[in-house]
């Protein structure tokens, strides 16, 4: 209890409530119109996706390219339940079911594939994401290639609530014993195994938690945008999430949140030039990796280092 009421977490709580109140007032006054509301929801969903992928890739060091697959499972399970039950609060059950289903698939796939090292895992998760997409494409009950329409249940408030919950839970997980075990796996798998950490268990746990929240993100996506198609959850979606995580910095939750705000805002301006957007994304990936591989904060350090060097040289 003492820890819960520490000044730091109290400050965070106030900031969270304040952010909500400000945005809600702006919506009420009408400054934030429908277009910006959609952008806000996109940002929130991106935050959930990026933070959950950061847990897998940034903190545990397991390179996953199938995050959109988990999102698809969440979206479709939630959509199907919401459509078939058609009760007032069935969508909450749908979100839960979608997340649990995604986590279940995460465990099912994680146990065999997480034995593999970095690059094999990347390809295996890529394959898994594609298999999920192709399977959904062939299931007639959820509309197949023509997609699934869902009544719009979620609004900005729900999305915000889930985003905050995701960030708080994952942050707390990382700061716990389990989280430190995950970070030790990223730093040196063999050494952490020698220290008595059950690496497979922690990797699968991180994978399942990441999948769980990706499922929530997918469910919210389906409930807010009320129409889902298998194409929306392809390989490129996984790459989109990866770009956010890399830009924000691997193993940096604050960075992921900032990048989740920046990238959708930029890409909404570049909507008319989709090729240009992807060229910029690809350059972001390459340049950040070449410059120290630490994301935006690393980039700042890099620039400062150059400036200081120049000053001392003159």
């Amino acid at each position, binding site marked *: 209890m003492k820890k819960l009421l520490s000044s730091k977490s109290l400050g965070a709580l106030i900031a969270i409530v304040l952010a909500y109140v400000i945005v809600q007032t702006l919506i009420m006054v009408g400054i934030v119109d429908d277009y910006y509301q959609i952008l806000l929801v996109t940002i929130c969903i991106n935050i959930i996706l990026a933070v959950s992928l950061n847990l897998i890739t940034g903190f545990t060091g397991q390179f996953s390219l199938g995050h959109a697959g988990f999102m698809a499972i969440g979206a479709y399970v939630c959509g199907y339940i919401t459509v078939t039950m058609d009760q007032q609060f069935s969508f909450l059950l749908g979100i839960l079911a979608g997340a649990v289903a995604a986590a279940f698939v995460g465990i099912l796939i994680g146990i065999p594939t997480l034995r*593999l090292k970095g*690059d*094999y895992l990347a390809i*295996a998760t890529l394959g898994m994401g594609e298999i999920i997409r192709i399977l959904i494409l*062939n299931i007639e009950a959820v509309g197949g290639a023509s997609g699934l329409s869902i009544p719009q249940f979620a609004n900005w408030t729900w999305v915000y609530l889930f985003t905050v919950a995701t960030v708080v839970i994952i942050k707390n997980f990382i700061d716990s014993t389990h989280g430190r075990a995950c970070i030790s796996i990223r730093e040196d798998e063999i050494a952490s195994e020698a220290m008595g950490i059950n690496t497979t268990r922690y990797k699968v746990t991180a994978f399942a938690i990441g999948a769980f929240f990706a499922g929530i993100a997918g469910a919210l996506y389906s409930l807010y945008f009320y129409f889902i198609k298998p194409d929306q959850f392809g390989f490129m979606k996984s790459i989109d999430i*990866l770009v956010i995580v890399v830009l924000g910095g691997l193993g940096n939750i604050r960075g992921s949140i900032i990048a989740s705000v920046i990238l959708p805002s930029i890409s909404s301006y570049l909507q008319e030039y989709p090729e240009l957007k992807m060229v910029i994304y690809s350059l972001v990936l*390459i340049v950040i*990796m*070449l410059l120290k591989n630490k994301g935006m904060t690393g980039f700042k350090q890099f620039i400062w280092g150059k400036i200081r060097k120049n000053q001392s040289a003159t």
Partner: protein
Amino acid sequence: MNYYSLYDVWPKSDSEGVRFLTQFLQQLINGISLGSIYALIALGYTMVYGIIKLINFAHGDIYMLGAYIGYACITFLGLGFMPSLIISMVACAVLGILIEKIAYKPLRNATRIAVLITAIGVSLFLEYGTMAIVGPTTRAFPPIFSNTTFEIIDGVVINTTQIYILIVTFLLMVLLQYVVRRTKMGKAMRAVSTDQDAARLMGINVDKTISFTFAIGSALAGAAGILVGIYYNSIEPLMGMVPGVKAFVAAVLGGIGVIPGAMLGGFSIGIIETFVSGYGSSLYKDAAAYAILILVLLIKPSGLLGKNIREKV
């Protein structure tokens, strides 16, 4: 003595069994043609992986660029098949060296994830950079061979393009085996892939060897690109994505880092895929390769021809 050709011996009856057999052989021919293209791409993956332990995600896009360069040679310069093939192979080799020098070399000692993310970045850059230059539309590849089909036996046909694909693939593979097994550079490649530090101590120029490996792999991908352009008559900027991943699956299936394994894997994936779309559903065609990948990784991660290597600390 009487000599019978296969044509005479082959039963002419229209029974169920014969129909099944002809269909089977036809699928096999189509599968081998497709498989040889996968094999050509897979060779590049496997050689690069063997030498610097990197999945070169951009490899599939070099194949796409090979197809575009071939298209430009045939359409705008009016060249024939052989000059176009050679030009696109050389151009792709240069491109492969450039990519290695710019994007991968500075990360030689970085973490695996960093290099992989860079590789994905390079891949996206090539795809969408090409799209920004040539436009996203699908282009029709000019027909370069007369579309003659030969009937091998009753109901089983092979066309000129398929014959060309098989011949070119066969020649390139023989050439590759010669380079790797018989030349000094091949020896250096094998040495670097076994132990980079030891090779350096023996006076081998490691950077030059790695560049050479990228050049060969990219040249093979370029050849595959132009062949597939002729085979399917159409090219587009994102055509490298899916074959790239499938060729990687082929490399893993055969045992990554093993050159004959990549050939075996490529042919297997091509044949399996053709059979899945021929007898099953073409909707599941793409899923087949991924399912094979996951099965291989579960049952024998070192691949069909790979050896188990103990992990060293």
